[in-house]
C-alpha cells in the first residue's frame, strides 16, 4: 500500500467517496419507497381503492373521486400499477407525500414536520447526554474495575440496560409527577403560554422535556457504559498504552491515547442512533404524551392512515440512510486506518 503522501488522501478521492455514498443512499431510499408503495397497494382491503369506492358511494363522480383520492395518497387509485408508481415517484421527487386521512386535508409533510420538532430535540438531547455520561463513566468503570466504584458503575450499567424504557418512564412519572409532583406528567408545553421566544414558553418547554429526556438518557446510558468499559479494558491491554507509559508520556497523553482508541467504535453506534431518532421513541412519547414522530406513527397505524404511515416510514428510512453515510464519513475522518483504505 503506497501513497504519494501517506495519510493524506487527495481531494478527488474524498469527493469520489462522498459521491459513492450519496448514490448508494439514494438507491436505498428508492428501494424503501418502492417497497412501501407496493405494501400500501397490496394491504388487504386496498385502502386506496376503498377510499375511491367510498367516495363514489357518497355520490361523487368517478373522475372527482379519482382526483380526491389522488390528492389524498399522492397517486392515482385506478389505472395500471406502473402508471401509479410513476405518479407516486414523481410526487416524491417534489417531496409530496400526500395528505393525511385522520387529520383530513393536512399534508403528510406538514404533520411530520410538526411532530419532528417534538422529537428531534429531546431525543437528540437524550442521545448525546447518555453518550457523554455513559462514555465518561465507562472509562472510570474500566480504570477502577478492580475497585468498588468500578463495580458499582458497571452494575448500574447492567441494571439500567436491562430495565425496559417504559418501566423507567413510568417509574419517573410515578415519582416526580405523582408522589412528589415537581414535574408535569405529560404534554410538551403548558397551554397558558404564548408560543414564541419568551421566557415563560421556553421555560415550560424545558420543564416538560426534563422527564422524557432523563428517561431516554437512563434507557440508553447502560449500553454506552458497558460498551465503553469493555473497549477501554481492551485498549488498556494493548501494547502501545504500556509503551507510552514506558516512554514517560504524561498521564494526560496516555489517557487521550486510551480514550480516543476506545471511543472510536462507539461513534458508529452514536451516528446510527442519531439516525434512529426520526423514529422517535414510541414508548416515551406515549407515556409522556409527547406529540413526536413515534406517537405520530402509532396514531397513523391505529387510525389506518396509510399515507401518513408511508410518509413516516420514509422519513425514518431517510434518517437511517443519512446516518449510515454520516457514520462512514465520520469514521473516515477520525480513523486514519480507514482513511487510507488499508488494513492495519
Amino acid at each position, binding site marked *: 500500500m503506497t501513497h504519494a503522501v*501517506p495519510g493524506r488522501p487527495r481531494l478527488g478521492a474524498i469527493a469520489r467517496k462522498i459521491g459513492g455514498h450519496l448514490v448508494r443512499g439514494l438507491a436505498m431510499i428508492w428501494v424503501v419507497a418502492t417497497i412501501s408503495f407496493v405494501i400500501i397497494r397490496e394491504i388487504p382491503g386496498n385502502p386506496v381503492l376503498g377510499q375511491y369506492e367510498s367516495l363514489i358511494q357518497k355520490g361523487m363522480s368517478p373522475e372527482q373521486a379519482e382526483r380526491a383520492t389522488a390528492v389524498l395518497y399522492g397517486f392515482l387509485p385506478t389505472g395500471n400499477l406502473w402508471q401509479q408508481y410513476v405518479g407516486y415517484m414523481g410526487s416524491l421527487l417534489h417531496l409530496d407525500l400526500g395528505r393525511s386521512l385522520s387529520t383530513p386535508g393536512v399534508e403528510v409533510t406538514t404533520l411530520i414536520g410538526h411532530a419532528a420538532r417534538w422529537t428531534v430535540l429531546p431525543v437528540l438531547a437524550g442521545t448525546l447526554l447518555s453518550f457523554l455520561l455513559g462514555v465518561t463513566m465507562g472509562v472510570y468503570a474500566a480504570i477502577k474495575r478492580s475497585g468498588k466504584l468500578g463495580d458499582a458503575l458497571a452494575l448500574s450499567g447492567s441494571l439500567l440496560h436491562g430495565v425496559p424504557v417504559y418501566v423507567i418512564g413510568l417509574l419517573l412519572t410515578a415519582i416526580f409527577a405523582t408522589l412528589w409532583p415537581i414535574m408535569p406528567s405529560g404534554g410538551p408545553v403548558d397551554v397558558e403560554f404564548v408560543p414564541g421566544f419568551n421566557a415563560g414558553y421556553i421555560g415550560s418547554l424545558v420543564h416538560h422535556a426534563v422527564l422524557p429526556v432523563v428517561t431516554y438518557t437512563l434507557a440508553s446510558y447502560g449500553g454506552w457504559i458497558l460498551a465503553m468499559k469493555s473497549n477501554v479494558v481492551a485498549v488498556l491491554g494493548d501494547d502501545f498504552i*504500556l*509503551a507510552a507509559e514506558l*516512554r514517560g508520556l504524561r498521564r494526560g497523553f496516555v489517557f487521550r491515547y486510551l480514550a480516543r482508541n476506545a471511543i472510536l467504535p462507539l461513534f458508529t453506534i452514536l451516528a446510527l442512533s442519531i439516525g434512529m431518532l426520526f423514529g422517535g421513541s414510541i414508548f416515551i412519547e406515549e407515556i409522556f404524551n409527547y406529540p413526536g414522530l413515534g406517537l405520530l406513527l402509532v396514531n397513523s397505524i391505529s387510525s389506518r392512515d396509510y399515507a401518513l404511515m408511508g410518509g413516516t416510514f420514509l422519513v425514518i428510512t431517510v434518517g437511517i440512510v443519512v446516518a449510515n453515510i454520516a457514520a462512514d464519513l465520520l469514521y473516515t475522518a477520525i480513523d*486514519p486506518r480507514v482513511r487510507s483504505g488499508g488494513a492495519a
Partner: protein
Amino acid sequence: MTADTTAHDIEAPGVRIRDLTVVYKTPAGELPAVRGVDLALAPGTITGVVGESGSGKSTLALSLLNAVQPPGRIAAGSVEIDGLGDVLTLRGEDLRRARGRQVGYVFQAAQNSLNPLKTIGKQLLDLGRSHDVEDLRGLVRDAKDLLARMGMDGARVLDSYQHELSGGMRQRVGIMLALVLNAKVVVLDEPTTALDMITQATILRIIREVHEERALTTLVITHDVGAVAEVADSLAVMYGGRVVEHGPVTEVLGDARHPYTQGLIRAIPRLSGDLSLARALPGRPPTLGTLPTQGCVFRERCERRMDVCETDEPMSVNRDGRTVACHAADRHLTLVKRKELV
C-alpha cells in the same frame, strides 16, 4: 564484536541489579518470576539476556524501569543506575521523567508500540512535551537524523501512521523513540522477534552501531542465542527466574559451564551441516506454578543432577569474571572434558 568503548566509558552509566525478586500474584499465592537476581551492566557495554519463555527475562527488563505490571510486584532488591539512583524507589513524576529520558525502552513487539490514530511525528511531539523539551524543532531534527541513520526517510516516516510502515520500520521507529531523548541506558525487549532474517540482521547492526555512537549501556533481552552472539559483549542466561550463568559472550558461548547453557547451545540448528546435530533440550521450561520451591530449578531437566540439587539451591559463584550457579559446575569444573563443550 570487541568494541572500542574506552572513549565512552566516562559517559555511559553503569547499572547494578542487586538481589532482585519479582513476584506474581496467583491463586496459589505470590510466586517469584524473578528471584534473587544479581546482574551488573558494565558502562558502555551490551549485555544480552537469553532464556526460554517464562524464564523471567521480560520481567527483569521491566524492572529496570520499575514498570512491572500487576499482578506482578517487585518484592525485594534494588536497581541502581548511575546518575539516577535506585529506580525501584522512584515514584510518580520522578519515575515518569526517568522513563524515556534516562532509560529508553524498546518494547517487546515494538511493532504494536505505536498509537494507531496518530502520526509518528505527533507521537514524537507528545513525547517531547511530556519531557519538557523546549526545542521541539530540534527534537524533530534529532528524530530525522536517527531515522536516517537507520536507513529511513525521516520526514516521510514522521508523517506516517503506524499502519503505513512495515514491521522492520516500526521497530526502528521504536528504537528512535527510545533514543531521541538521549537516554543513556537502553533496554531492548525482544527487538528482533517476529522480523524476517534480513530485517533482524539490519536491526542488530543498527543496535550495535547506535550503541557505540552514543556511548550507551544496553540490555538486550531475547530468546535467540544467535542474535545475542551477534551484538552482546556479555551474556546472562536466565532459567526459572534466576541468572544461572553470566560472563563475556565469547566465553559463555565458547565454554559454557552451566548445563542449561550447554543445552541451549546444543539446541541451536546450524545453517550448514547436519540438522540432526541440533539437539533439543529435554523437558519443558518451568512455569510459575511448577517451579520447585527448594533445590536447583533446573534439576528436572539436568543430565548432571546430584543429590545436593534436590535440597540446596546453588549459589552464584564468581570465578575469573564469570558467574555460574550450579553445584555440578562448581564441583566438577576441572573434570569437565573440553570436547563436550564445543
